[in-house]
């Protein structure tokens, strides 16, 4: 392996690491939402680790750009790495927000059951793990699954938000919990969006084609 290939491998490993940390934060956030409150100390520790790795990735990429002048697939990998790290860091932050917000939802379990949120939360967990998988395997079929999952999550979230708002309109007591739940729904939706963005960067890495603003139908075709 050349010195340059070792540098690329190092970068890949940091992304795998930051990705798995963000995934663990998402798993914790789903747990916090669906079952018990989560110990804040561990979550904070992981958040700090993610932030440090995010900076580390920027530094490694900067150094590769300056010293190795990458081209073709190497160039695409490093460009994607910088974007992916940014998206992963956002996923981590959103998961922490879900954990914090879940604490202040009264009658959480009843509301979750009523608006069928458990299934949606599990799908967000799934899309996060699929995203890490697709970076590792660069598998086109997994990228496609992520696009479809994101669409499903978005639709389910919109339906749930619609129902929560209807509930708040008819029962003023539900407004505080309902609002918190809507915010959580939006956070979950955003996590799913960031996963989709990562899948788009992986697609760019593999195929040299930028699809980030394409319509869902066009992406599926890809």
């Amino acid at each position, binding site marked *: 392996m*050349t010195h340059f290939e070792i540098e690329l491998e190092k970068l890949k490993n940091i992304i795998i690491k930051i990705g798995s940390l963000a995934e663990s934060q998402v798993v914790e956030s789903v747990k916090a939402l669906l079952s018990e409150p989560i110990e804040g100390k561990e979550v904070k520790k992981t958040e700090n680790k993610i932030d440090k790795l995010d900076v580390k990735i920027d530094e490694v990429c900067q150094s590769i750009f300056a010293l190795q*002048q990458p*081209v*073709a*697939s190497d160039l*695409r990998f490093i460009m994607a790495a910088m974007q992916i790290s940014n998206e992963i860091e956002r996923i981590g932050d959103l998961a922490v927000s879900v954990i914090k917000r879940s604490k202040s939802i009264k009658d959480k379990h009843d509301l979750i059951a009523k608006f069928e949120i458990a299934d949606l939360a599990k799908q967000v967990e799934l899309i996060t793990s699929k995203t890490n998988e697709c970076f590792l395997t660069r598998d086109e079929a997994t990228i496609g699954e992520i696009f479809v999952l994101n669409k499903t999550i978005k639709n389910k979230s919109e339906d749930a938000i619609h129902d929560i708002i209807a509930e708040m309109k008819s029962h003023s007591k539900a407004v505080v919990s309902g609002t918190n739940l809507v915010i959580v729904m939006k956070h979950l939706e955003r996590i799913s969006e960031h996963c989709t963005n990562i899948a788009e960067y992986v697609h760019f890495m593999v195929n040299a084609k930028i699809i980030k603003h394409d319509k869902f139908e066009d992406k599926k075709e890809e």
Partner: protein
Amino acid sequence: MKDTKIQVKDLSLYYGEKKALKEISLEIPRNKVTALIGPSGCGKSTFLRCINRMNDLIPDVKITGQMLVEGVDIYDKNVDVVNIRKKIGMVFQKSNPFPKSIYENIAYGPKINGIKGKNELDEIVEISLRQAAIWDEVKDRLGDSAMGLSGGQQQRLCIARTLAVSPDIILMDEPASALDPISTSKIEELVHELKEQYTIIIVTHNMQQAARTSDFTAFFYLGELIEMGKTNAIFTKPEKKQTEDYITGRFG
């Protein structure tokens, strides 16, 4: 490619029994820079020298196929090789000024082409040196020996000497490989400016130089043209795996 200056059809070159270029077909566009890249011995310099028939000087060389410049096959037996070389200038890896004054280096070509008037020669010398971005550095010492110039200045002087005989095409064989980064940057900037008026073909081992200076890149390997395309495409997403391996340094 819409505006083709040079069209190469099935060009093969043999050094005795050895086939050094294998059925090369490509089109070189007018007023663009085309870079030829590839590992040592891949045939890129041999190909470059085919464009002004410099390989004619090597014994046992046989060439088949066609090299059409403006639609005329320069290997046709009725073509005058001196006329071809007038229209196709060449700059080499090592600067090779004549051991004469700066002025004489530039005026030499026009003089042997029959230009005698001092005013006309003065004008050609100034225009050529300006085009080669060296006028300001030498205008006050045109009578000094060209051998006293720095390597980078000598190379730009050689480019000016090439321009003085008004060629259409400029061939450059690793023109900056022996120069420091500042002189290299001047040569690259010059190449960029000259393409407005000339069709330039440049052989380089420096990938970044090919990427920075050229509009099109052709990758040669073992005497074959593996891939030719827009430089932007070659350096971001080459079609062929061999090209990708070469430009990313994973060759062999």
